[in-house]
């Protein structure tokens, strides 16, 4: 058990070390998320001005799009350094490898969201932090569900042709329930007055999907990654 946890941490630490030294994925993902928010803010226009109720949707779209990009970049790095094969040969459990990569992605996306969420709250006058605990829970559960599926697919697509377009094509239909729950839960919190039972219901929905996605991903990671 301890060896497993240590293996997970070794993989995560490697990714974090590289990221803290270059900050490449972090900066590019943050600015991409910002660009997303901008484009969508002006995409949804009513009477010449941005609509007010779109904050929840725009936030989660930005998370989904920038998350997909971050996943792609994170595994592109593995491909270029040909370190994925080294990781697969290493004497660690495959689930530990998967969880290590997942944790690394989660920390990266958390860093992105820490910057983007307050920004969205500011730009759309959205009271996202009135019920901060539930909001954070929604963000964590939603990002976890998205990243769980994303890590599996990004890893398995590393050696595939047309991987750049395949990742979104595969990821978005699968993570639609997560996005829906995230948006609806956030929107429930942004209502005046906030609909807390509804937000909690969507949170349980998210947690259910997190469990399903994590289970299937853990189960299939090894056979999918083995030649």
């Amino acid at each position: 058990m301890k060896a497993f946890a240590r293996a997970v941490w070794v993989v995560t630490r490697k990714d974090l070390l590289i990221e803290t030294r270059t900050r490449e994925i972090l900066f590019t993902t943050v600015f991409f998320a910002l660009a997303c928010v901008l484009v969508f803010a002006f995409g949804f226009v009513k009477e010449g001005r941005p609509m007010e109720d779109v904050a929840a949707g725009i936030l989660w779209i930005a998370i989904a799009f920038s998350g997909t990009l971050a996943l792609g970049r994170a595994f592109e790095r593995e491909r270029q350094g040909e370190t994925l094969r080294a990781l697969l040969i290493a004497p660690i459990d495959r689930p530990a490898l998967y969880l290590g990569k997942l944790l690394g992605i989660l920390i990266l996306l958390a860093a992105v969201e820490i910057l983007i969420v307050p920004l969205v709250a500011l730009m759309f006058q959205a009271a996202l932090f009135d019920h901060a605990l539930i909001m954070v829970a929604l963000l964590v559960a939603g990002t976890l569900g998205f990243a769980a599926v994303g890590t599996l697919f990004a890893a398995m697509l590393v050696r595939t042709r047309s991987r750049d377009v395949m990742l979104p094509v595969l990821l978005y239909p699968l993570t639609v329930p997560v996005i829906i729950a995230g948006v609806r839960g956030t929107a429930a919190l942004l209502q005046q007055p906030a609909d807390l039972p509804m937000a909690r219901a969507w949170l349980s929905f998210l947690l259910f999907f997190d469990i399903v996605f994590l289970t299937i991903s853990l189960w299939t990671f090894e056979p999918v990654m083995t030649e």
Partner: protein
Amino acid sequence: MLNRLFVPLAVVAAAMFAYAPFMILNAPYEATMGLVQKIFYFHASAGMGLFLAAFVSGIGSAVFLFTRKPAADRVAVAGAELTVMLGLIVLVTGPLWARKAWGVWWQWDARLTSTLVMWMIFNAYLLLRRYGGPGSDRLAAAVSLFGMANVPFVYWSVNVWRTLHPTTSVIPSLKPGMRGPFWFCVVAFLLVSTLILMVRTELEKRRQELDELYLAVED
């Protein structure tokens, strides 16, 4: 095995589909929707076939992932294509019915959205197999597993959430005159689905044998 059973079963299936409209026309009209409700017989049967096809593909994929048997992979591909075909039928006949019954072509309720999502997942499966290059059979198998996991969600979505779409309790509580035609159509659809699976797996098997032959020629 394929050629012996296929033609008689195909004849039966064609006959059933030829006879079905007459059965359906003689079935009692539904109280509020009149003629347009008759789409139900094929729409709901296709829906049942859809769930079955998704399960076939998912289970085939699981077996393939853990045993690497090529036969399982062939079944998975056939199942996925069938899922896309039946999904297309469900997603086209539904709105044709809805236009009259609900006044709108489409609604973003739980049942319709989740069905569309599941259909797109299996489309993604086929895209991955076609354009993914070598090794995409294993990857697609993982996609298919996620697609299969959606089936219970799609099925129960209509009972858990308040939607425009009729709930699952409609089937057990069908009026007597509707039951006969409905289950007849279900059997017809299951028969055609089985036939499609049989031919499609055979096609896949022959394609692989052909590839091996080409390799032998090159030697």
